């Protein structure tokens, strides 16, 4: 009797556990590659929608055809929830075989925990843009392949600019003039959805880079003399608060979520004229409001009076980056999948269909919207990766929190800089 009970309990527990897992997985949307069914399953977690997702499906189908008996299971997770979900899976010891990231500090954190497979042997680092692969290489070992690269630009509505005889501003004064003119005509100058905090953080990064050049962040991050309380950071905070005080942004931006499209909607409908964001915005446009693309113009973030930064100092992002987790049952096969995803031919398809740039060398985009952005990126003398992806996660959080507070006018630039530097001392001085 007792034995029977014990087995019953044990089996019911197993059943419960299984149900739990099943439920968790069905929470996100799955899309099989080509419906291949084999015993070797590679689970891939990503966050892309639209054409990018179709690209993954296409590569998965190719891979399943080339490797009979394998099954690529693509699992899409919404962007805002992804970081947490992957962290939970990683610390729970149940990560996917292949996962997306942005390289930088966030990936490095997992590398330091021993959760990411070293794929230096399997991939050819030379075929990627050197700044991009550097963002996934730690201690000379490659931990991920950067499929995509993107840059930040100020995108604007050409129609509105033409209507009010505005030109692309090159300096801060011109930028402020544009803002004033738009405001006079009841158009929101800059659209921002800052609940997620990173869209606002771009401003701090761009302004600081224009003020002090890329050396400041390098020095503050590597602890070689300057800090996050550098006068340039305080001044950058003041620039942000000036913009807020002149009502350059849409009201209530600090509570608007980016993923749901709060800020993009304002642009599509002509209620707002500009947005400072990554060029993956174009991917969004193609999915959400394709007719808007022909009205789209862009200019790099304007220069600041007395600033040491050059216009060729470009903010950039790697992503999607793909890595193999150490829990993967078939790490070699998974690495091959990454290789297939980043062949030159496939990368060309990626850049042509998705309206994004690839970090794979010699895959220049053919379409009219992307070409100028590619050319712009090609002239870059320095690429600044976003702070929140370079810094260790906890410090990145402080950076985003303090910047959001700057935007909300609930913290002075001095306070924000001080708080940031205090945490940096704690986390980085070891």
């Amino acid at each position: 009797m007792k034995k029977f009970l014990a087995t019953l309990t044990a089996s019911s527990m197993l059943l419960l556990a299984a149900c739990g897992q099943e439920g968790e997985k069905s929470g996100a949307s799955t899309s099989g590659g080509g419906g291949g069914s084999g015993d070797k399953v590679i689970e891939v977690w990503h966050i892309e929608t639209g054409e990018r997702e179709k690209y993954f499906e296409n590569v998965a189908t190719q891979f399943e055809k080339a490797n009979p008996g394998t099954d690529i299971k693509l699992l899409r997770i919404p962007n805002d929830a992804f970081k947490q979900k992957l962290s939970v899976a990683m610390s729970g010891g149940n990560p996917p075989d292949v996962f997306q990231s942005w390289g930088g500090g966030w990936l490095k954190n997992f590398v330091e925990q021993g959760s990411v497979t070293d794929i230096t042997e399997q991939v050819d680092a030379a075929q990627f843009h050197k700044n991009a692969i550097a963002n996934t290489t730690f201690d000379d070992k490659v931990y991920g392949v950067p499929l995509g690269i993107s840059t930040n630009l100020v995108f604007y509505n050409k129609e509105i600019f033409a209507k009010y005889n505005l030109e692309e501003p090159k300096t801060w004064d011109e930028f402020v003039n544009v803002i004033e003119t738009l405001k006079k005509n009841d158009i929101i100058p800059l659209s921002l959805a800052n609940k997620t905090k990173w869209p606002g953080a771009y401003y701090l990064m761009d302004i600081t880079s224009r003020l002090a050049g890329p050396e400041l962040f390098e020095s503050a991050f590597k602890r070689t003399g300057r800090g996050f309380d550098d006068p340039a950071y305080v001044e950058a905070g003041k620039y942000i608060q000036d913009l807020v005080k002149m009502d350059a942004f849409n009201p209530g931006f600090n509570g608007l979520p980016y993923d749901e499209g709060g800020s993009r909607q304002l642009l599509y409908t002509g209620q707002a004229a500009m947005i400072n964001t990554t060029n993956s915005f174009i991917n969004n446009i193609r999915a959400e409001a394709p007719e808007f693309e022909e009205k789209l113009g862009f200019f790099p973030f304007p220069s600041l009076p007395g600033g040491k930064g050059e216009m060729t100092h470009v903010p950039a992002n790697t992503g999607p980056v793909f890595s193999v987790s150490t829990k993967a049952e078939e790490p070699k096969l998974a690495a091959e999948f990454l290789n297939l995803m980043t062949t030159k031919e496939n990368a060309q398809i990626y850049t042509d269909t998705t309206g994004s740039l690839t970090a794979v060398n010699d895959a220049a985009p053919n379409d009219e919207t992307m070409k100028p952005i590619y050319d712009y990126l090609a002239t870059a003398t320095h690429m600044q990766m976003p702070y929140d992806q370079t810094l260790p996660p906890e410090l990145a959080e402080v950076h985003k929190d303090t910047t959001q507070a700057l935007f909300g006018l609930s913290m002075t630039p001095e306070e924000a800089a001080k708080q940031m530097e205090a945490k940096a001392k704690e986390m980085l001085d070891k």
Partner: protein
Amino acid sequence: MDASTENVSVVKQQEILKTKKLVRNKKIVSISLFIAPAFLIYLLYVVYPIFATLGYSFYQWDGTTEKTFVGLGNYAQLFKDAVFWTALKNNAWVVATSVFVQIPLGLIMALMLFAPIRGLRLLNSIYFLPFLMSTVAVGMLWVLMFDPMNGIVNVLINVFGFENVAWLSDEKTAMFAVLLVIVWQFAPFYMILFKAALVGISEELYEAAQIDGANAWQKFQNITIPLLMPTIVSSSILAIVGSLKAFDIFYIMTGGGPNGATELMGTYMFKQAFINFNMGYASAIAFIMFFIALIVTIVIQVLEHRRKQKGGYA
């Protein structure tokens, strides 16, 4: 009476006792067998995690690599952490709203359903509807309704001549806005509890009161409220414990922002665990949450016990 008969009766008595014991033992065995599956699951999924959390809270740990023992270090840091105190204060707000707004509102809605109004069934469904929706959907829905420019809430207040309010974006209004949604979503739950309890109150009591000349208010005060007391108490426990554990709606609607204005113990714990990878620190927060909930529950139970001893209705 000779010695032998006495002996026999003693033996008999002993035998009876033995069989009684046997029966009792048998009963214990069968009862525990019946309890065992549920009890094991309870041990594994409830008791063990509580103690494991307590254990983790003594370590500095990122979730995967080696743990470092720091004793009460996490707790010492926690009590100095300004964000934690904000979170605690916000949780107190949630508790207060749940107990003093949600429960009375639930009671009023339940009473209305017993009033002789036409179209009661419709009201019943309408009241209950919010509770049927998933919290994530409710959160998204209200984020759109609270939209600072085009949200329906702002359109409505414009009609009355007020300026647009950036509900979820302003540190001063964000907490209020989310609390409003919580009340909207959970008051129906208490309505159902009260409705069930109201059905259980015997009509005779009201008739007797009627004969004694009691008016509606007196009936409510002296019959309805005392007889609902057990339900009110259990609702309060549910409301308080639920509020202390609140997480989902805040996570969806504000993510603890802007600038930490709606941070709760739950969201802060989540942030420390899965964004900052401070599992030990997060465990300390989790344990404090458990501890507060435990204390509150004990206090309510003791008060309820005293009330019953004083001769209140069971």
